[in-house]
């Protein structure tokens, strides 16, 4: 069945709510309206107002209340209307949720999912385009996922909901309706912590996730056709914990690596990955560890500015060519 990325998320929510009555959804405008992007559409009708809960504009409360319910065995899926607003719930996430099991000596759980539409490309400007993932990938106790396809979106959300630890689930809003895929109907999961080679190759590895995966595959195909270089695209899918084995295996195979993400260059997860590679695959490297990412600035609105600062297929093509000819 061909489904959009958005529908895949909606299906995962619906199926998990049907499967486990402890799963419930909470956030701003998620019930009546079905969410600002319609991700939670139809859930209120299907599951009632006790399990699909509209909240006031109180991000810290939304996450904190999710934690409290989760500690008693519920499986809340809470929404940040835009991932950008997660800044308002920051303390609850990095201190309350992330340390919970630890503080309780391993004897308490926080099976909660925090969803949020992230990423640029819909004229959202500074505060509706952010990629906040790297604020959280440095926090033990959390897990962080960022799917790039409808299949992964559905499978990872199901895994996240069934996971006994707090999972941040960053969906890329540009993909909601622009990406479609034939996926199996019904139940399947994608494991948290496992990257996937989305495009096999021998000469150069692109390591990426979320909004830049398809761009990277497109770029790989362009260069392969034009220059005969064979490029591997590794989709991380999970950002915490990183799939170090898959990363190192790909780099050891190809000897060259380009890390691509839409999040900012400085402090994006590409730094962590680059350092990992420079330490653990040092002897295999045939060229500098290269990164391509959003420029070190904010998500400027004007189309020429946005174009200039964000990665895209052309920029990836250029970066591949430079690195390939090193």
């Amino acid at each position: 069945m061909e489904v959009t990325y958005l529908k895949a998320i909606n299906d995962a929510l619906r199926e998990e709510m049907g499967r486990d009555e402890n799963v419930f959804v909470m956030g701003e405008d998620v019930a009546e309206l079905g969410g600002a992007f319609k991700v939670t559409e139809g859930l209120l009708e299907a599951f009632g107002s006790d399990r699909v809960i509209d909240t006031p504009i109180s991000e810290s409360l939304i996450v904190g209340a999710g934690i409290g319910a989760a500690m008693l065995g519920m499986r809340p899926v809470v929404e940040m209307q835009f991932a950008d607003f997660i800044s308002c719930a920051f303390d609850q996430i990095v201190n309350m949720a992330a340390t919970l099991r630890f503080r309780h000596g391993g004897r308490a759980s926080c099976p909660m999912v925090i969803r949020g539409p992230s990423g640029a490309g819909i004229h959202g400007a500074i505060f509706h385009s952010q990629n906040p993932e790297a604020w959280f990938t440095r926090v033990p106790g959390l897990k962080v996922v960022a799917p790039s396809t409808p299949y992964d979106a559905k499978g990872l959300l199901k895994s996240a909901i069934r996971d006994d630890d707090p999972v941040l689930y960053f969906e890329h809003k540009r993909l909601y309706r622009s990406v479609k895929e034939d996926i199996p109907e019904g139940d399947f999961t994608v494991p948290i912590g496992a990257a996937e080679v989305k495009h096999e190759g021998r000469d150069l590895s692109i390591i990426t996730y979320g909004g830049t995966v398809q761009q990277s595959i497109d770029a790989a195909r362009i260069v392969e056709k034009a220059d005969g270089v064979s490029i591997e695209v590794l989709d991380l899918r999970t950002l915490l914990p990183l799939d170090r084995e898959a990363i190192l295996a790909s780099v050891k195979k190809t000897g060259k690596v380009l890390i691509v993400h839409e999040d900012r260059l400085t402090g994006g997860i590409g730094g962590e990955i680059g350092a990992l590679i420079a330490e653990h695959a040092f002897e295999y490297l045939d060229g500098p560890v290269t990164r391509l990412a959003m420029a070190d600035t904010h998500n400027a609105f004007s189309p020429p500015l946005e174009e200039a600062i964000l990665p895209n297929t052309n920029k990836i093509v250029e970066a591949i060519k430079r690195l390939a000819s090193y």
Partner: protein
Amino acid sequence: MAEANLVHSAEAGTRVEYELQLYYWMKLIRGFEERVSRLHRQNKILGGVYSGAGQEGLVAGICAPLQQGDVVLPLHRDLGVFLMRGVDPGVLMAQLMGKDGGLSRGKDSFLHGGDLSRGVFGSTSMLGSSLPVAAGAALKFQIKKEKNIAVAFFGEGAASRGDVHEAMNFAGVRKLPVVFVCENNRYAYSTPLEKQMAIDDVADRAAAYGFKGYVCSGNDLLAVLDVAEPVLARTREGGGPALIECKTYRYHGHSEHDPALYRSKEELLKWESRDPIQRFEFYLEKRGEDVKRLREQTDEKVKAILQRAVEFAENSPWPEVNSVFDQLYASPSPAMLDGRRS
């Protein structure tokens, strides 16, 4: 027109002139809002557009008593505040189009830009977060013993944010010269009042912070003035903070993308019958104005201003690409410039 803000001319004039000016401002704001909606439909304005049509009465009534040196922090529906503080309509239009001529010089298209020379502080999207900033501006006035005030707008939806509490509490403790203005339009996006709070009036919360709260009809300019004039004056004279709640309604959906199916036609109708501009026209008529003529004259004036504003904005260039780095820091260090890769 655009250079002088209301206050200066108002101070010079009579009450009648003052009221006529406020009529003009409401008309300009409404006209501006409608033009923005149209430009959005025409894809000439991209990104989120949040119409404040229907709420002009409270904007005019709160801004009227402001003085030079005061600071105001408008939110997403308050483009009227920019106009009344004297921001050029062309500049404001350029802001919405993301042009270099806008307040953000293309960095943002929302009302997150500001004009410090006119005391307008830009906010972020994070609702409620401008209230602590307003408290800080008021703190400066207090420390420096200046007779200015800060005014922060916020929706009843934003009232649920923790920042609002922290700001009001601090303002109460220090008796800061700040006035908090709640635009209660009954909805936060799709969420109706009763899902946002278990009380009727946000104004009642002022008691939790040791100052006074006031409720007025935000669609009745005279009612807003009745509250705003003495309350702002009292705060200016060292009377401490205040909270003014204006009951109002937005005609459009939450944003121009939103058909607002969560509310009834009857409700909208009821509120349209309380239109702040028509109400004020009714008053002016009673007072003896030739409203038909006044309306026509004003419409023409507004039309011309908007015409020029759109032209200015459309002719304004896109910003230079390097501005995304040059406008980040006061003086970018060399290391900073090195980050200019994408």
